[in-house]
């Protein structure tokens, strides 16, 4: 009987291919199989609350902290980060390409009423996007169905939609680099420090969920945070680019 744990994860890490890189290394080393269920952030957290996973690996810090505070998780640790970018069509109808100022870019998009595809699914990315709008003093949902289009889908589906309708979209860099259907699209806005995207990992509380494989789960978390794990993350590249930047406190 093979030893395994279940990790509840967001789709961005899976879509980027991170697990295909990390898990064989971990399996080689420990003989433990890590089974990843990649779903929306909310669903991942809900599943973990239902004790249907041993480890939670997402990027929505406030929600993660709430998860721990309510006793569903043991502790939360930073694992790695990358950044969000705004991607858009080559035609650049809002004229934001090359900008490093997110607020200015969002304002111009609204001014131009250029289509913008929002995740609209309460995911970590979606929450980050809403925070950016708010910081810019804009309520885009007033124009929902107009230029502001809430796709209510995962990152990949939203990017497919954005490309299909020539709309700007906020995405994490890893998802974008790994994305295969870019069409004429490219990164329009990047480099603003408000675009920081932190990933965290949490062991599901064995007190709340007796079925949790606490030992194996903690072992995986420890490895992720260890030098070996952190350098494995740093080694992961797609199209020659590093997608995730390890920043565990211990390292």
């Amino acid at each position, binding site marked *: 009987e093979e030893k395994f744990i279940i990790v509840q994860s967001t789709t961005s890490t899976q879509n980027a291919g991170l697990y295909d890189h990390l898990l064989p290394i971990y399996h080689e080393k420990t003989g433990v199989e890590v089974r990843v269920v990649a779903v929306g952030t*909310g669903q991942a957290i809900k599943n973990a609350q239902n004790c249907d996973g041993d480890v939670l690996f997402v990027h929505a810090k406030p929600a993660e902290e709430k998860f721990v505070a309510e006793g569903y998780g043991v502790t939360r640790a930073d694992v790695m980060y990358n950044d969000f970018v705004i991607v858009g069509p080559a035609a650049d109808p809002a004229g934001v390409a090359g900008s490093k100022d997110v607020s200015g870019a969002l304002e111009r998009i609204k001014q131009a009423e250029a289509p913008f595809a929002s995740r609209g*699914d309460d995911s970590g990315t979606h929450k980050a996007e809403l925070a950016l709008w708010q910081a810019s003093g804009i309520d885009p949902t007033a124009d929902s*169905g107009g230029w502001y289009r809430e*796709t*209510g*889908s*995962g990152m990949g589906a939203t990017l497919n939609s954005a490309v299909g309708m020539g709309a700007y979209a906020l995405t994490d860099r890893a998802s974008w680099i790994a994305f295969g259907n870019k*069409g004429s699209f490219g990164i329009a806005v990047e480099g603003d420090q408000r675009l920081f995207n932190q990933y965290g990992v949490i062991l599901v509380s064995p007190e709340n969920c007796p079925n949790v494989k606490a030992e194996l789960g903690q072992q995986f978390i420890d490895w992720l945070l260890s030098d070996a794990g952190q350098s494995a993350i740093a080694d992961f590249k797609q199209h020659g680019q590093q997608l995730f930047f390890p920043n565990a406190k211990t390292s």
Partner: protein
Amino acid sequence: MQDFGAAFGQAFALILSGDADLLEIIGLSLRVTFSAVALACLVGLPLGAALAVGRFPGRMAAVTVVNALMGLPPVVVGLGVYLMLSSAGPLGVLQLLYTPSAMIIAQAILVAPIITALTRQVVEDLHGEYDELLRAMGARRLATIATLLWDARYSLMTTALAGLGRALGEVGAIIIVGGNINHVTRVMTTTIALETSKGNLSLALGLGIILVGLALLVNGLVMGLRSSAARLAYA
């Protein structure tokens, strides 16, 4: 189990609230579904009957293909329609992507093989009985098909309901070509998928219950119509 209870609670609360967004979503669901099934019937009924009646080489192969197409994966249909309708695609000029029309097209493609295959079976069974009579009468192909479709209409209702069921609950294809855009292409199933991914499981389930209720309502209406028609029938 409390989730199920909560789901029913949510469903009732939603229905009672008469939420405008919900009504919009339900309306679009019904519009897309009925249009798609109507389209699929328009193609599938005569095609299925023709397959049942026809005696041409390759008929078995055609029947097999139609049967196999019942297994068309929604995501694949969605992708295919997406690639056709996307701005870069051959039908891009129509600008149909992310509109209800695109959803109708995708669902019709998904449902048509089901209608066709089941119609073929139902009509073939009846044809076994009528074949020699109609040939002895010298009925032409089209008249034969019309006669069979008409006389099998009550059995074909189950066929249409199967197609309706398929369309009503479908999400994979329409979310790709419709984009689940709020106030534009958001329907019941895409909303359910969305709420699920948000982790709002009991809300999702509540919406599911409403959708099943809708299916029950439609089916009840159809069965009611059917039995009153059957009573008045034999015109």
